[in-house]
């Protein structure tokens, strides 16, 4: 027999490591984008509320509180992902956020509103030729896929989950 057990194990371990590495990348991409997006908005809660109002979905007062809360939620979920702590729960939340964003941008596009998504601050109405709905949705779909990967397979390298809980 030319193939030993040790020879078989090396590629299998390498495969797991590769998948873990993909998980780490997914964590860092989604997590860092969420942290940056939240940090740019968290110091201007009123502007964040205005950006939410511009989507014209929620009642005014509800939109105001969503605008205040959203940057905080983004930062916390982003931190958990970067740290690799409660990865699956954080990934579920991050993916849900992206689905909500995609839906919000999509409905604005479909209704003919001309707004900036306000994803990284700013937001509100822009000129019709300055909308970037396609780009914004594509970016959020990519981020949602990062989240979906982690929901399905939360294991990754260099995360607190593995360090603390061995999972």
């Amino acid at each position, binding site marked *: 027999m030319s193939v030993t057990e040790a020879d078989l*194990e090396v590629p*299998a*371990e390498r*495969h*797991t490591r590769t*998948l873990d590495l993909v998980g780490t990348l997914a964590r860092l991409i989604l997590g860092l984008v969420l942290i940056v997006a939240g940090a740019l908005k*968290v110091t*201007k*809660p*009123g*502007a964040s*509320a*205005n950006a939410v*109002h*511009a989507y*014209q979905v929620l*009642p*005014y007062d509800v*939109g105001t*509180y969503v605008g*205040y*809360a959203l940057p*905080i*939620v983004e930062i*916390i979920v982003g931190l*958990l992902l970067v740290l690799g*702590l*409660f990865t699956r729960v954080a990934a579920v939340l991050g993916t849900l956020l992206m689905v909500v964003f995609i839906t919000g941008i999509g409905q604005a596009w479909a209704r003919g509103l001309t*707004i900036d998504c306000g994803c990284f601050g*700013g937001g*509100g*109405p822009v*000129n*019709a*030729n300055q909308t970037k709905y396609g780009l914004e949705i594509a970016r959020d779909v990519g981020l949602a896929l990062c989240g979906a990967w982690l929901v*399905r*397979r939360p294991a990754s390298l260099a995360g607190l989950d*593995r360090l*603390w*809980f*061995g999972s």
Partner: protein
Amino acid sequence: MSKTPQKQGTSRQAKIQAAQKSGRSGANPIVIGTVVAIVAIIAVVAFVVLTAVNKNGGSSASGTALPPGASAMGKGLVADADVTLQPGAPTLDVYEDFQCPYCGDLEHGLGSTIESLAAQGKIRLAYHIMTFLDDNLGNDASVRAAEGAFCAAAGGKFLEYHNQVYSNQPTQEGAGWTDAQLATFASNAGLTGSALTTWKSCTAADTYAAYIASIEKQSSTDGVTGTPTVKLNGTDLAVLKTDSSGVTVMTPAELTAAVQAATKS
């Protein structure tokens, strides 16, 4: 995809578990509980602080008065309310924020036409003075200028004050105005002597804070989240046109024609 690698990775898992054997059973619930509690506390504290800070940054809604020309909270201020409207005259709703540069463009291009149409009773002119740019620009100049305009309205000089503000918009959006500048606008608008004293105590008391907040809320609820927005009998009027060369304002002739077309004969 998920099954095979996990099975094949068992020896590695075993190593990891072995390495953490001592820490696993005892630490888990405490660590999880502590981290969850810390995260929850941070979230709640951050939310409460942000909400409180933003409330203070905006007007604390001390005054609940309505300026003359406004029939209720959330309703625009009707300029030239004493002018008798011509039969079938349409309503022109103008939504603007004193700090908005395009509102300045609108004012310079069409302001005198709009005012003269209102003075002749050819339109019912309602100004909705919004203040959301304070939040976006991180200052309070829109609210202070709006307060100044409504206090000027109380002295019968709304349009004059309105024009003063737009003639003196800062070249840099967000620079705002000092209190002294706003007071100069009042005296230039024709409020002098005791009228100026009244204006000053009116602004100092935030007399129209609740009205200003109500306009912002009602406009946003009505779908107006950007300025300038102009509605003729409730329909959006494209007063600004954007193309590759930049922004151009509708001409006075075009506006007059649109108003005539909307006039019911």
